[in-house]
């Protein structure tokens, strides 16, 4: 069953179909959210909210062969809501509670080299570059799938990807 069919089943309340959809998309959805928020804890919260929205709102998906683009729209909106909440907290002087500094609340990873590369990607790349790098490298989407899901021309995705990898290599002293 493809993701479009799974979403249809989810809209009918099929929990097994939802679980299958979750298993097929969790890394992609998390990568996408992390590329926007840059903070693993916030990304986890928004990931949970995203899947709840998918569960409750699957019936509003209009089959157009782009289920991932629909899921990304939900996730992106929730990320921007998170930014608004954080801005409101900052305006109220509560920003110290939110742990905004990248790295300050970055969970320890067993492999330090992996952590350094991911933190570099989150810190030095622009949002659209982070998206294509994380979606391709971490979740294994092909460049053409990323282009379709983000509504970008394939050539744009490829050039952003190559530019981002070059930046990363320069930053890490590998070029």
């Amino acid at each position, binding site marked *: 069953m493809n993701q479009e069919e799974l979403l249809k089943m989810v*809209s009918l*309340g099929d*929990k097994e179909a*939802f*679980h299958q959809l*979750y298993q097929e998309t*969790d*890394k992609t959805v*998390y*990568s996408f959210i*992390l590329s926007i928020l840059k903070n*693993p804890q916030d*990304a*986890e919260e928004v*990931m*949970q909210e995203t*899947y*709840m929205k998918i*569960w*409750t*709102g*699957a*019936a*509003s998906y209009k089959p157009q062969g782009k289920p991932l683009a629909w899921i990304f729209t939900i996730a992106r909106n929730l990320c921007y809501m998170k930014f608004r909440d954080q801005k409101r907290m900052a305006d109220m002087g509560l920003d110290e509670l939110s742990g905004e500094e990248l790295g300050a609340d970055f*969970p320890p*990873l*067993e*492999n330090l*080299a*992996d*952590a350094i*590369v*991911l933190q570099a*990607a989150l810190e030095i790349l622009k949002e659209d570059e982070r998206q294509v*790098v*994380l979606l*391709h*490298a*971490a*979740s*294994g989407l092909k460049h053409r799938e990323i282009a379709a899901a983000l509504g970008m021309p394939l050539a744009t995705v490829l050039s952003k990807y190559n530019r981002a*990898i070059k930046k*990363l*290599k320069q930053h*890490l002293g*590998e*070029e």
Partner: protein
Amino acid sequence: MPDTDRIKQNTRQLEQRIKSAVDALTPDVFDRLDLSVRQVQRPPAAQLSREARPEI
């Protein structure tokens, strides 16, 4: 090793490191989802067209 091969290998290593880091970070939130929450149902097409019709 030729330069192009070395560049490709470096890129693959970089991608692999990003993948490993994201794999390690990706949480499993499925069990935390409350699937008893009522799903929003799409109204039947006939009802949609009635609602869309302007009142006379």
